C-alpha cells in the first residue's frame, strides 16, 4: 500500500524551511539559463497526453488530458471491436476489475479503452461493444481521427520496435497502463492478470491513506494479501 502517514506529512512540512536554502543552492549551481523550470507533472502532460479531442461511446467529445486524465487515477488499454483473439477475454477481465473497484469507477478512477481501428469503431459500434460486455459508467471506449488515435497509441507506448510486428494490431492488446496523474505514479501490467491482482497493483498508485478519497483495494483483494 502506498501510504502517506500523517507523521511523515508533518515531518515533510516541518522541513520546509530547509527547502529554501537547498533551492537557492540548486539555482546557484544551475546558472545555465538554457533549462526551463517546468514541473515534472507538466512535462509528463506535455510528453504523453496531447489534448486531442476524442469521441466516447456515449457520443461525448472529450479532451484527452483536460477531461480524461487530469486529476484522476486512470486505466488505459487498447482494443478494437472486431478483434477475435485476446480482446474479448481482456475486456471481460476488465469488467471483473470494474466490479472489484466498485463505485470508485467514475468517481476518481476512470477506465479508458482506445480503439486501434478508428474507421471501424464508430460511436454506434463502440456503444454496442460496451453494451454487449455490460460495461458500467466510468469506463469509456474512445475513438477519433486515424492520426489522433495513432498518436495516442504511440504516446502511451503501445508500439513494437519492429515495424512489421507493429502493423499487427493484436500486438498492442495485451498490456494495461495505469497511473495516478497528480501523484505522477505510473505503471503497467498484463491485461490478463487476475483482476484482483490488477486492483492490488492499482493500490500502489492510490491516494495517500489520510486523503479524503477512498482506497482502491476491495476487501476481497486485500484479503488476498501482498505476497506475505
Amino acid at each position, binding site marked *: 500500500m502506498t501510504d502517506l502517514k500523517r507523521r511523515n506529512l508533518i515531518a515533510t512540512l516541518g522541513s520546509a524551511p530547509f527547502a529554501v536554502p537547498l533551492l537557492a543552492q540548486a539555482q546557484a*549551481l544551475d546558472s545555465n539559463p538554457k533549462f526551463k523550470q517546468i514541473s515534472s507533472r507538466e512535462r509528463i502532460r506535455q510528453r504523453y497526453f496531447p489534448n486531442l479531442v476524442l469521441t466516447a461511446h456515449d457520443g461525448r467529445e472529450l479532451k484527452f488530458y483536460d477531461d480524461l486524465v487530469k486529476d484522476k487515477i486512470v486505466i488505459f488499454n487498447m482494443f478494437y471491436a472486431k478483434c477475435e483473439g485476446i480482446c474479448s477475454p481482456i475486456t471481460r477481465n476488465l469488467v471483473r476489475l470494474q466490479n472489484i473497484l466498485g463505485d470508485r469507477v467514475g468517481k476518481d478512477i476512470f477506465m479508458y479503452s482506445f480503439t486501434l481501428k478508428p474507421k471501424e469503431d464508430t460511436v454506434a459500434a463502440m456503444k454496442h461493444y460496451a453494451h454487449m460486455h455490460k460495461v458500467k459508467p466510468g469506463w469509456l471506449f474512445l475513438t477519433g481521427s486515424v492520426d489522433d488515435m495513432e498518436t495516442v497509441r504511440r504516446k502511451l507506448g503501445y508500439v513494437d520496435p519492429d515495424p512489421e510486428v507493429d502493423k499487427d494490431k493484436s500486438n498492442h492488446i495485451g498490456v494495461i497502463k495505469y497511473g495516478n496523474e497528480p501523484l505522477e505514479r505510473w505503471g503497467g501490467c498484463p491485461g490478463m492478470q487476475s483482476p484482483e491482482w490488477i486492483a492490488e497493483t492499482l493500490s500502489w498508485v492510490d491516494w495517500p491513506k489520510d486523503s479524503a478519497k477512498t482506497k482502491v483495494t476491495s476487501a476481497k483483494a486485500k484479503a488476498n494479501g501482498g505476497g506475505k
Partner: protein
Amino acid sequence: MAYISKRNRRKEQEKQTAANNRRELIAAGFKRRDLLKMGLLTSAGMLIPKKGLSARPLNSMGAFDDDEPNSPNTTPFQELMPRLPVLAPVASLTPAPTIAPNTAAGEARTVAHQAFAQFPPQRFYEMSEQAGTVLMAPAGELPPQTIWGFNGITPGPLIVERYGNLGSPGNGSILLRLRNNLPADNGGFGLPSVTEHLHNGHTPLESDGFPCFFMERGQFYDHHYPNVYAGINSTHPGTGDIKEAMHTLWYHDHRIDHTAENTYKGLAGAYILFNEFDTGNENTGFRLPSFGDGQNPLTSFDIYMVINDKVFDNQTGLLKFDLFNTDGILGDKFLVNGKIQPVLHVSPRRYRFRWLNTGPSRFYQMFVLGPNNSTKSFWQISTDGNLLERPVQVNSSRFSVAERVDVIVDFTNDAGKTFFLENRLEQEDGRGPTGDVLGAGQGDKILKIIVDGPVVADNSVNPATIPPGTYFYGFPNTTDPVRITRTFRFERGNGQWQINGQLVGGCNAAPRFAIKRNTIEKWVFQNNSGGWQHPIHMHFEEFQTLSINGNAPSGTGLITRGRKDVFRLEHNMEAKVYLRIRDFVGRFPLHCHNVVHEDHAMMLLGIINDVGDNKTQP
C-alpha cells in the same frame, strides 16, 4: 509467437548516411569538439538525429514519439570518476535486531530469519533509502538532479565484507538494516515502496529482496547476510564449498513492476566480498591488486565501476524516464560511478576493475581503446563476480544488464598514455544489441583513463606469468545426478512478456514451481526470437553452462564457462545450465534483468522447500 526481425534496409541506409555525413563534416575541417558544440554530434559519437539514442523507436512519420529523445550536450571527460565511498559498520542498531519480524517497531519483514541463530551477525550496517541531490555532469551543464539513493547517493555506498575463514564460517555474518525514508513526491517517476536484493548473495530468502516483500515509507527491513559459501548446510557442512566463492556483488531495488524506474532513479549500489584467497591485498593469497581503503589512489588499485546509461530531458535538463516503454530504455549518456563520462588517473601498474552494468536495458562489449585507435588487451578474471579457473587474456568483455566482469588491466608500460573504456556493441533499441561490433574508436567512450599517476610498487600477480592450470578455485563439477530438468521459454505475446506462455501471476498467486532444497536441477533456457535478447537472472545460487545451442561453452573471448547468475540469452538461443540449490528455503524470482522487461511480467515467482515439484515447464 516467434518474432523474427530482419535488419531493416532503410535503417541501414540511414546509418550509412549518418556515417557519411560525419566523415564529410570531419573532412571539411570540423573537429569532433566543434560538432559537439554545434550540437550535431553527441558525445557518444553519433550524428543527431540518429537512432539508438531514444527510448522509443521512430514512428511511422519518421519522428520520435517523444519528440526530444536526445539529452542536452555535456562535455565529456571533465570530471574525476568518483571512487565509491565505503560504508562503515555501526556499533549497534536500535531497536536491536530480532529473529521474528519486529512489526511493532515498524519492520516490514514478514518472515523470521532462518539462519540468524546459526550465524549470529558479527557486524551491523544501516542505510536509509532517501532522496538526494547530485551533479552528474560538469557544473552548469546539467542542473542538479534529484535522485533516490541508499544514504541519498547513487551508486550507493560500497559494502566491503569478508567471508568467515574456512572453519569459522560465521565470522562473515552481517546484518544490514534499511530504512525507507523516500518522499511521497516522486518528481515524475519512481515508486516509494521498495525491496532490496543482494545480487547474487547466497542469502536466506527472507533477506534476499523477494519482489513482493515491500518496505513502505517509514518502515525498516533487516537483511541478514551470513556471507557463507553455498553448501554450508548440505554438501560441505561446516565450511561451504570454496568453489562457490563470490567476490563482486551488488544490491538494488527489486520492487515488483517498478524496479526499472527505481533503479534508474538511483537505488543501486555495490558489494564486495574478500576471503583468505581473494584478500584485497596484493601481497597475499591470489595477489590480486590491492583494495587498500578504496579511496587513496596510491594504495587502492581495485576499483569498482558502476556503469549505466541515462537520458536527460532537454528542456529541463533533468533525468528522464520513459513511463510507458515496455521494450527497454536506452540512454545516450553513459555514467561511471554517478558521473557522465568521467576521467580516471592511474599509475603505471596493474589494476583490478570491477565492471557492473546496472542497465536499464543496454548490453556492452567493453574494449580498452588506446592511442591511434589501438585496442589494448586485458585479463578477464571473473564472470558475474565469480573467479574463473585462471585469468583469460581478451580484447573485450561482453556483459548485459546486471552482469559483472572483473578484469586486470596492465598499465605498467603505459606511462604518459591515455586510454578509454569503449563500448563497441551496437544497440539501437531495447530489444538487445544488433550483434554488430563497431570498429575501434566508433563506439561509445565511457571513461577516459590517463596514466599519469606516480610510479608505485606493484606486487600484484602478473597474469602473463601464471603457469598453466587452475590458478583460482576451479569450478564445481557438473556431473552429480540431476533431480529434474525444467524448460523456461522466454517470449513475447500480444505486446507483453511471458515465460512458458504465462504471465508473472502476481504476488498473491501460488508459487509457479517448487525446488526441493539440497538437490540439483538442469534448466533449459529458450529464446525463439531473432529480435530480442534477455539477460536471465536466477537468485540465490549460481549456475554453470552445460551447452549453448547444443555446443559446450567455449573458453575464449566472450567467456561462458564460469559460474554465472545472469545468462545472456541471445537471439534464437537455447542454453542448458546446471545448478545446485542448497541450504536455505523461501521465495525467489527467476526473471529477465532487462529491468523494463522484468517490470512487464517477464518473471516467475517460485519457492524452495523440502518437497519440490516435478513441473518440467513451470
